[in-house]
């Protein structure tokens, strides 16, 4: 019982860690065309080159952890999202190899840069669609996916996809504000200033649409005790956005990024509250999908020891590459 709840939190943590860590480097990919060829792009790339691989590993933990802790959910959700997930994986191929390939082939650097951008964009859109499809509900038949092959494609899932693109782009821009200087820093700040209100609008639209795609959310949000969260949430979102904007105006380095992360944190918390304790909203609860006790305990021992260790050496790696990356590498 408790084990299942702990595992639900751990998987949620892995997904959140992924969004927080890979979000900004996917965002840099999305924004790549806005940076000038040459020093600006090189600097943007160099801010994430040492860490992108570790960031993406959280995606593997999210997927692998879901298989291990909630195998039934894994077996239903992944086939339901066959096309977008395949697109995401292929997008990640392009953006992953671009980190190495673009330096190896000056003549085709534009091509790999395009692959980096397109791959990042496709992966983000696919993740946004996945989010939307999950929220709007997945048809289940017995222990398998029971819907059609295009069920994931709706106006709502396109809205969540567009929102995630804006959100990751904001994280990417805010990260560059923090980690760079000179022209790329100024460009990033200008982009972040524009993306911030766009993200607010996107959050607003998704929030307005969500209660109407599935009645469960309407009840959750507008009945006691859900109101306890529904009422302060917009206030908190606006406050985080205001602080991010303040940081951008005043030329703060870390503030805009950290407050943008806070925005993401709030939306993720809202999502969690909306679907808890389901793993497939309205269809499958975490209890129904949970792996047996022996599997949960075995993994929990490892997770309890290893996740803190992982966080420690990940933090160390970020610490090693701290500070601003100029157009000439780290200073």
């Amino acid at each position, binding site marked *: 019982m408790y084990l299942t709840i702990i595992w639900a939190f751990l998987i949620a943590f892995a997904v959140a860690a992924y969004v927080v860590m890979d979000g900004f480097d996917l965002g840099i990919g999305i924004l790549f065309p806005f940076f000038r060829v040459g020093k600006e792009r*090189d600097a943007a*790339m*160099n801010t994430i*080159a*040492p860490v992108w*691989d*570790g960031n*993406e*590993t959280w*995606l*593997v*933990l999210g*997927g*692998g952890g879901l*298989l*291990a*802790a909630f*195998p*039934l959910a*894994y*077996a239903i959700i*992944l*086939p339901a999202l*066959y*096309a977008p*997930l*395949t697109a995401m*994986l*292929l997008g*990640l*191929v*392009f953006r*992953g*190899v671009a*980190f*190495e*390939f673009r*330096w*190896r*082939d*000056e003549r085709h650097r534009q091509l790999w840069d395009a692959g980096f951008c397109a791959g990042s964009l496709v992966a983000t859109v696919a993740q946004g669609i996945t989010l939307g499809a999950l929220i709007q509900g997945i048809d289940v038949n017995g222990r*398998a*996916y029971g819907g059609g*092959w295009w069920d994931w494609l709706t106006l709502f899932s396109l809205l969540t996809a567009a929102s995630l693109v804006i959100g990751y782009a904001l994280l990417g821009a805010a990260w560059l504000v923090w980690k760079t200087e000179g022209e790329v820093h100024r460009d990033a700040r200008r982009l972040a200033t524009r993306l911030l209100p766009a993200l607010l609008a996107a959050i607003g639209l998704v929030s307005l649409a969500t209660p109407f795609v599935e009645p469960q959310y309407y009840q959750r949000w507008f009945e006691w005790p859900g109101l306890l969260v529904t009422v302060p949430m917009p206030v908190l979102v606006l406050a985080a956005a205001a602080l991010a904007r303040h940081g951008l105006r005043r030329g703060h380095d870390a503030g805009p990024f950290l407050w943008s992360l806070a925005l993401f944190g709030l939306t993720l918390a809202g999502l969690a509250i909306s679907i808890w304790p389901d793993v497939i909203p309205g269809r499958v609860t975490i209890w129904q999908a949970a792996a*047996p006790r*022996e*599997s949960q305990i*075995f*993994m929990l021992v*490892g*997770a309890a020891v*290893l996740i803190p260790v992982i966080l420690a*050496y*990940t933090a160390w*790696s970020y610490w*090693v*590459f701290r500070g601003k990356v100029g157009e000439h*590498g*780290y*200073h």
Partner: protein
Amino acid sequence: MEETALLLARAQFAFTVSFHFIFPAFSIGLASYLAVLEGLWLATGKPVFIHLFRYWLKIFAIAFAMGVVSGIVMSYQFGTNWSVFSDRAGPIIGPLMAYEVLTAFFLEAGFLGVMLFGMEKVGKKLHFAATLMVALGTFISAFWILSVNSWMHTPTGWALNDQGQFVPAAGWWTIIFNPSFPYRLMHTVTAAYLTTALVVGGVGAWHLLSGRKTVPEVRVMFSMAMWMAALVAPLQIVLGDRHGLNTLEHQPAKVMAMEGHYDDYPDGAPLILLGQPLPSQERTAVLLQIPKLSSLILEHDLNAPVRGLKSIPPEDRPPAAIIFWSFRIMVGLGFLMFGLGLWSLLARLRGRLYDWSWLHRLALVMGPAGFVAVIAGWVTTEVGRQPWVIYGLLRTRDAVSPIAAPAVGGSLIAFVIVYFSVFAAGTYYIVRLMARPPQAGESAEPDAPIRTAGITPAPGLRRDGEGG
């Protein structure tokens, strides 16, 4: 239609896993080689080792990136295409794969950044520690994923629950160390080391043949690689034999297919060297065979009875024609590697290691042989597991996702196009780096990339890269 969808899903998994396997087969060995080079540099202070380290690190970075992105695909494909398998085996294989992520993937990824770009930032010793962590991570990764794979071949320690799931029933030790795992782990990891040694040897041979016999880096890499080939190839043959005997014990049908035996041989089975299994006729057309040798190899007794595929119901037989040939390719290449190692010992004895052109030509040709052998061996064991996904318990056809053929066909085409274009480009970049000799660019400023205090791989590498 369902048959087509199944076939396409199998083709997609075979394609993506085979492509993926190429990169770890190289990076497992190369990570260890890099750790040895850096360790030797720290211990002896000889610049030749750090030059070689830098030279192979650039190649490692590309191979590793391709391994990462093709590996992420695998971790999702269990669910997208094999959802019934995921649901039913998830409680057992899921935790093992989660341990792979937690103990291996994060370790590799977390220290890779420091390994690639951090020498300046953290100093030599911490950098060496990072290199060791990456090398250790590649090995731990092999440990877990091969444990999962071995459990699918020799499932132990399971019970069925009410939902039809395989759940742990006899402790995790029994599951992790299932009967085929120790053999498979040893054989596969050794294969990775041998593959890397052959690549390094091939590159060294290329530069020796190109008239760079006096370049110390070239001599050292060729000599190290030939020592590996001479020592590890015979070891690998022994390990392969042990693994084969283990397979005979647990998956006799696979060995029958490898041998091309359809009939029972009550008083000694021949070793068919060349032939063609004809499953529809339940016989193997034999071109060349040695009487009784198969019994000697399998049972260590010339007259031991050996059973054939006819003793197995047709619906439980693996496709013999593929396995028969993939096995012969693997074994044939293994003995060629052994021969290369022996020749290098002879050359050493005669003091001609660096100027025996025919040895270098063979080493060059054998450069990619490890990859071919690894894939052939993988095909042998995995095709040999058919028609089961979990041996004897769950058929492959019953494990597939309910996805229609057009969807699987579409994704397969997309994977083929993307993999061939992207990984062909990556391979081209690697080969281009290999064609360039280890040179002054690697030695000019041992600890300082070209840019001021830069960690960027780019400028330094670019300058080096253009040299070739």
